[in-house]
């Protein structure tokens, strides 16, 4: 993974010193509340319902075991001994003291981490596929490009006060596991007919109260122009994006109002002016970035060797077999497999891990996966490079630490925002809804029979829980001071992305598990062999679900 050199260290240290000074001036009354606000946000610090919240950046979801151990230490020393993985592959602390934040940032800087631009109206952490570099369907490893984008966007002097937040996601595989169509800029790495690497560039995607899927404004951008093209897009947005209304300030509104063609024309005109300038990536720079993501020193296994071992073990142990089926992912190298550690056992807020669990993750990474850890946008943790022969041992250890719930990709592997339990924006709680659904559907055979099913929950229309792109989406709404939940069906986040449709009037929290049950019944009764929920929905539409859920009791 990327390692800081002296220049990176210096920049991050200077940032910590800058924020320390700003915090001191704020506490001394020399910096007004409203002036401190964007400064603290751009250092990851929110003020929440109960306490400040600090969002720590995990660039494109990648960490080493040393960093994970430091996070464990920080949660113990400055917080309540747990942390939360977010849908943008970052980590959040829910209970730090404002006065301690500069010290936390200094501790992070020592292990090459920071909380820069994890909030505020600036370019946020770039996200990507959690299986980058190991997936069988990958065309090009996205991580070297993500790192170049990270450096370009970090402390960007022109784009620190944009109309609104700005998110970039990169996908280098056939299947889009980074939800690039739901981002302000989505980048799909492609090859042209001559075999040259380049990028398809999408703009204007985003969730929130006006969910829109991104559209392609350039089919093929040559590799060298990545940064100049991004700069052109963000520059057009900075000049023309709306600033009179916070809810109309995202780039998606500008692209929609102007039309994608006109927006593309303006971007191209701006880019013409800068494309041959200093931001043009040199082959040396691209090679240099690639060198930080070398192939680990894999052992040479013969084809099929590991599978045979696994078949035997799985045959003897049903629980292992289930875990293997749901929580591991094929690897492009013989004898290896990727493992997803589930942070979603029933009864724990999705994405939450304790300090001890963080240390366990670090230990498992060191023992089984070259000391590297990835955070997924589904809020789980991936160990990408595990020998198949060692999966059984890893499973047993993961089980001890509560990470082996075999539910990845199933109904109970929900994406869920912190909701009204923590967040001051939320209209409704989301964690108790997730838990009630997990409790109702705890029969693994039933879950497996349902198959792949994304259920996403947001506590308000800001959509941090990505409810628009869940196959089943749940949105917390406020009705005269009471918490209700609206259900949407048919959303999807992959390369065939779609936005869910509202089923009908909302439900009380108590009604939710039952409502989900009825929706699942309609699916089970109507499914054809090999169909997942989303396929059946796409075939039969919203109506049958609507009829069942809102049927009058006879």
């Amino acid at each position, binding site marked *: 993974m990327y390692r800081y*050199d002296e*220049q990176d260290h*210096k*920049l991050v240290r*200077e*940032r910590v*010193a*800058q924020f320390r*000074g*700003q915090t001191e001036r704020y506490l001394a009354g*020399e*910096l007004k509340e409203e*002036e401190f606000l*964007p*400064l603290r946000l751009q250092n990851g610090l929110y003020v929440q319902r109960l306490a400040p919240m600090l969002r720590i950046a995990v660039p494109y979801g990648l960490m080493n075991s040393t960093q994970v151990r430091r996070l464990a230490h920080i949660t113990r020393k400055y917080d309540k001994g747990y942390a939360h993985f977010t849908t943008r592959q970052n980590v959040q602390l829910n209970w730090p003291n404002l006065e301690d934040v500069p010290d936390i940032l200094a501790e992070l800087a020592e292990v090459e981490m920071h909380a820069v631009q994890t909030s505020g*109206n600036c370019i946020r952490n770039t996200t990507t596929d959690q299986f980058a570099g190991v997936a069988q369907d990958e065309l090009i490893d996205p991580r070297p490009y993500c790192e*170049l984008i990270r*450096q*370009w966007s*970090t*402390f*960007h*002097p*022109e*784009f*620190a*006060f*944009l109309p609104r937040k700005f998110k970039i996601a990169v996908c280098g595989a056939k299947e889009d596991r980074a939800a690039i169509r739901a981002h302000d800029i989505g980048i799909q790495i492609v090859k042209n007919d001559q075999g040259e690497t380049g990028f398809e560039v999408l703009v204007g995607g985003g969730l929130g109260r006006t969910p829109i899927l991104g559209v392609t404004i350039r089919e093929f951008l040559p590799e060298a122009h990545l*940064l100049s093209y991004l700069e052109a897009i963000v*520059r057009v947005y*900075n*000049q023309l994006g709306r*600033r009179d209304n916070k809810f109309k300030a995202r780039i998606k509104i500008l692209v929609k109002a102007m039309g994608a063609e006109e927006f593309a024309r303006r971007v191209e005109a701006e880019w013409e*002016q800068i494309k041959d*300038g*200093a*931001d043009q*990536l*040199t082959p*040396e*720079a691209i*090679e*240099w970035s690639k060198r930080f993501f070398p192939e680990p020193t894999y052992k040479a296994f013969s084809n099929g060797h590991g599978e045979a071992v696994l078949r035997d073990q799985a045959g003897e142990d049903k629980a292992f077999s289930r875990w293997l089926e749901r929580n591991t992912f094929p690897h492009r190298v013989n004898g290896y497999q990727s493992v997803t550690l589930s942070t979603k056992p029933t009864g724990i807020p999705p994405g939450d891990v304790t300090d001890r669990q963080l240390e366990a993750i670090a230990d498992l990474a060191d023992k089984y996966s070259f000391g590297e850890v990835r955070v997924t946008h589904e809020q789980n943790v991936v160990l990408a490079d595990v020998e198949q022969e060692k999966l059984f041992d890893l499973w047993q250890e993961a089980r001890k630490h509560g990470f082996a719930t075999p539910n990845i990709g199933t109904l109970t592997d929900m994406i869920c925002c912190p909701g009204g339990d923590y967040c001051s924006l939320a209209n409704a709680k989301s964690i108790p809804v997730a838990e009630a659904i997990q409790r109702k559907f705890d029969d693994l055979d039933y879950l497996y029979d349902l198959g792949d099913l994304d259920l996403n929950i947001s506590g308000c229309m800001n959509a941090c829980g990505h409810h628009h792109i869940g196959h089943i989406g749940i949105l917390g709404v406020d009705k005269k001071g009471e918490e209700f939940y609206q259900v949407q069906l048919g959303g999807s986040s992959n390369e065939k992305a779609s936005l869910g449709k509202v089923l009908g009037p909302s439900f009380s929290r108590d009604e939710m598990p039952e409502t989900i049950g009825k929706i699942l019944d309609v699916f089970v009764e109507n499914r054809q062999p090999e169909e997942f929920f989303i396929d059946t929905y796409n075939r039969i539409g919203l109506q049958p679900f609507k009829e069942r859920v809102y049927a009058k009791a006879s």
Partner: protein
Amino acid sequence: MQKPAKPSVKKPAVKQPIGEQPENPAKLILDGAIVDNQWNLLPLGGEEEITADNLASGKLILPLSLWLELREQLQDRKEEIGVWLDSDETADLVGEHAAELPLIAAHFPLFTDGRAFTVGRLLRERYGYTGEVRAVGSFIRDQLTYLKRCGFNAFAYQGDQPLEGLLESMADFSDSYQAAADQPRPIFRRRALA
């Protein structure tokens, strides 16, 4: 005989200010030093119509819309006429004319309105402007380090913090990742990449 139709001369819409107009403090930061402000700044609008003849004497920063109107008539006052851009006015509206101006100011109606950062960079990097680029309006101390990177060399700060503190914040960073007005080469062109 029918009279030929008069060509309709549409008067350009009067430019409305975005939020509060800039103040013009007595002291400011110029090239890293605290100095007296030598310029007056004319706000947008006002009761009286301003012409080249009734324009006040001395060094004067005009709203861009007024300057574009009077530009031809002010050729012999070039040394003492600057312009200020409101936050909805882009650098290309000055464009190649920039070279005629000793001073161009960009306005922050709110410190969170970051359009001026782009104005600074485009003036310096696209139009090769070498005169004074001045930040005016509601920007805050903590923006100076980025403003400097975007080509601003003058800061007419109107807040309540001492200017000495602003000088300190200007030096928050000693290096950078990106190319900008102060650094023609991004970090990947400066690192030893071997």
